[in-house]
C-alpha cells in the first residue's frame, strides 16, 4: 500500500554474542581467525571476534520482520521474491556490541506488473555510530 511509505517501526536491539559470530562466520565460509579466535582478534586490534560484514542480516532481521509482516504494507508472501540488496558498512561490529536497528518503508511501487517494496534498515552501535545501512528490495509477482 503506497500510504505505508515513510512508516517507521520501533528500534529493535540485538546483543552480539561471540558464539553467534562464530556460527555465522562458519555458515558463510568466513574462515579468517579474526572471526573465530578472540586472541587473534585482539592481536589485530579488535576487542573481540569481528562479525563478517553479512552478519548485518542477523542483527537487522528482527527489525525488518516488523515491516515485512505489517498488514499496512500488505506483502503477499506466496508471491514474494528477494529482488536486490544493498549494505553500506560503518565501523566493524564485534562480539559484545549492542546494535539497535530501525526500519523505514522507503518505496512501494508498481512497475511492469510487478510490485516493488523497498525497506531501509539503519543499525547503530552502543556509541551511536552507524554500523550498517541496508536497502532491501522485495518483488511481488
Amino acid at each position, binding site marked *: 500500500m503506497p500510504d505505508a511509505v515513510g512508516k517507521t517501526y520501533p528500534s529493535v536491539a540485538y546483543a552480539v554474542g561471540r558464539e553467534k559470530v562464530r556460527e555465522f562466520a562458519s555458515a558463510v565460509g568466513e574462515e579468517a581467525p579474526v572471526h573465530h579466535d578472540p586472541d587473534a582478534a585482539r592481536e589485530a586490534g579488535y576487542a573481540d571476534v569481528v562479525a*563478517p560484514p553479512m552478519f548485518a542480516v542477523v542483527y537487522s532481521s528482527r527489525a525488518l520482520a516488523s515491516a515485512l509482516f505489517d498488514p499496512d504494507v500488505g506483502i503477499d508472501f506466496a508471491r514474494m521474491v528477494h529482488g536486490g540488496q544493498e*549494505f553500506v*558498512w560503518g565501523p566493524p561490529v564485534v562480539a559484545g556490541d549492542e546494535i539497535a536497528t530501525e526500519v523505514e518503508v522507503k518505496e512501494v511501487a508498481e512497475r511492469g506488473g510487478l510490485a516493488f517494496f523497498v525497506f531501509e534498515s539503519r543499525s547503530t552501535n552502543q556509541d551511536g555510530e552507524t554500523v550498517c545501512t541496508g536497502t532491501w528490495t522485495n518483488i511481488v509477482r
Partner: protein
Amino acid sequence: MTEIAPGAALPELKVTPDKYLTVRYAGASGDFNPIHIDEEFAQSVGLPGRILHGLWMMAQVARAIGAAGDGPAALRSLSIQFRGMGFPEQELAVSATVKDVADGVATVEAEAFQDGRRIIRKGQAKLQVG
C-alpha cells in the same frame, strides 16, 4: 597478494554448498523459510526443490571481494541483484573485477553463476585496499 588495479580480476571463488548448508545457514541467520530447508514444501510451492538463501549467496560475493581487501572491515559497501535460484550441492562461482581505484578504495563489480546460470548480477562493491 592480489593486484588491485583497474581491470584486474580478483581470484574466482568457487564453493559447493553441501546438502545441509541451508539448515546451518537457517540457524545462523534466523531465516527458517521452509523453501530453504524442506524439500517437500519447496516442491509443493512449485520449486524444483530446496533453494539456497539469497543472502547466503550474497555472503559468498562479499567473501570473494572482502578477501582482497585490507582486513576484516575492508568491505565498505555491496549491492547486488538476484536473478535466479541457487541450489544445494551445485558449485557456485563468484567472479569479480576491479573497475577503479581512488584514495585507497577500489570499486569492484561482481557476478555469481551456478551451472552456467547467472544468479547474481550487477554486484557492485567499495573495498578498502590500503
